[in-house]
């Protein structure tokens, strides 16, 4: 074992966290290496000195001052932090707009329907004789213009 390899193991030895085989290899190295023995001792002694650092007394009334400066606990709505969420959702909204534009954009124009076909679809099914069951107008030979005029001027309370 070289000193470079021993360095990290020295710390773990102080903490008592060495695996058995690591410990044996380190001990063999320490028997031969005065420098690493000294390093181990320095690490241990500095730790002891620091752990003996005298504690500073907290001034009287410290806890009271802390408690006096507390504000009410924020509710769950505050905890959601809407400003942050709104800001974070901007790119999501933009991405959705792009997807919507690409996926649901203008489609091919449908074949224009004759107005009579539209009305036929609208007023109902044909009866067994093939005559539209619902509209008198449908029974007559009318032009699209005539049919439109009839629809627009019809009394809605009376059947065509």
């Amino acid at each position, binding site marked *: 074992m070289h000193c470079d390899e021993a*360095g990290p193991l020295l710390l773990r030895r102080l903490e008592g966290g060495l695996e058995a085989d690591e410990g044996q290899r380190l001990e063999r190295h320490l028997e031969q290496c005065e420098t690493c023995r000294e*390093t181990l001792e320095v690490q241990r002694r*500095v730790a002891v000195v620091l*752990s003996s650092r005298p*504690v*500073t007394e*907290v001034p009287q009334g*410290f*806890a009271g001052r802390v408690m006096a400066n507390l*504000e009410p606990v924020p509710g769950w709505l505050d905890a959601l932090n809407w400003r942050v969420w709104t800001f974070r959702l901007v790119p999501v909204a933009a991405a959705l707009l792009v997807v919507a534009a690409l996926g649901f954009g203008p489609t091919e124009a449908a074949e224009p329907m004759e107005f009579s076909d539209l009305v036929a679809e609208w007023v109902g099914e044909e009866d067994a004789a093939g005559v539209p069951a619902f509209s008198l107008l449908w029974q007559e030979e009318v032009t699209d213009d005539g049919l439109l005029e009839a629809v627009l001027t019809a009394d809605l309370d009376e059947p065509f």
Partner: protein
Amino acid sequence: MDPDRTLVDEAAAGNLDAFDTLVRRYQTQLVNYALAIVRDTGEAEDVAQETFIRAYRSLGRFRGESSFKTWLYTIATNTARTALERRGRRERVGDQSLDDEAQTLSAGSVPSGLPDPETTLVTRDAIDRALATLPDTLRVAVVLRDVEGLDYKEIAKVTGSPIGTIESRIFRARQRLRVLLQSLVSVPVGNR
């Protein structure tokens, strides 16, 4: 199981007495930790107070992934760093050479014998002055381990650094402090 969990839950539900108990439980540790980092009594008290206030505001977001104590130290570390940045490090002695600092520390006043108030003050001052010469990352790591007694996993959580990095920082910090605290650490310097 986090020994503070019940109090934390009660405080999060609005029980001020529960939070007051937590403040009294950790006030000494936090003030001393802050003092070791910022080296100014008034500023350390401000950092500790701000830490508790921030913790209280964030209780609803505390998920218990670490202990409450570790979480407090995380907030305290960030608050202390902010205080140091705000101060602009004008009072730090980091630019002073290690040799100069070692002479200063050893020339004066290394305490011996039974601790009296003056000795206590001198010892603490010597340690804090030595700590102040370290870069922030080394100082935070070694203070959390050797002064505050956190384990490596807890320090890794507090600092957000891998355990290997923490080990390296603590190792280097102690090696540098050995020179600065040679009067307290009675190992001959310069054998390497």
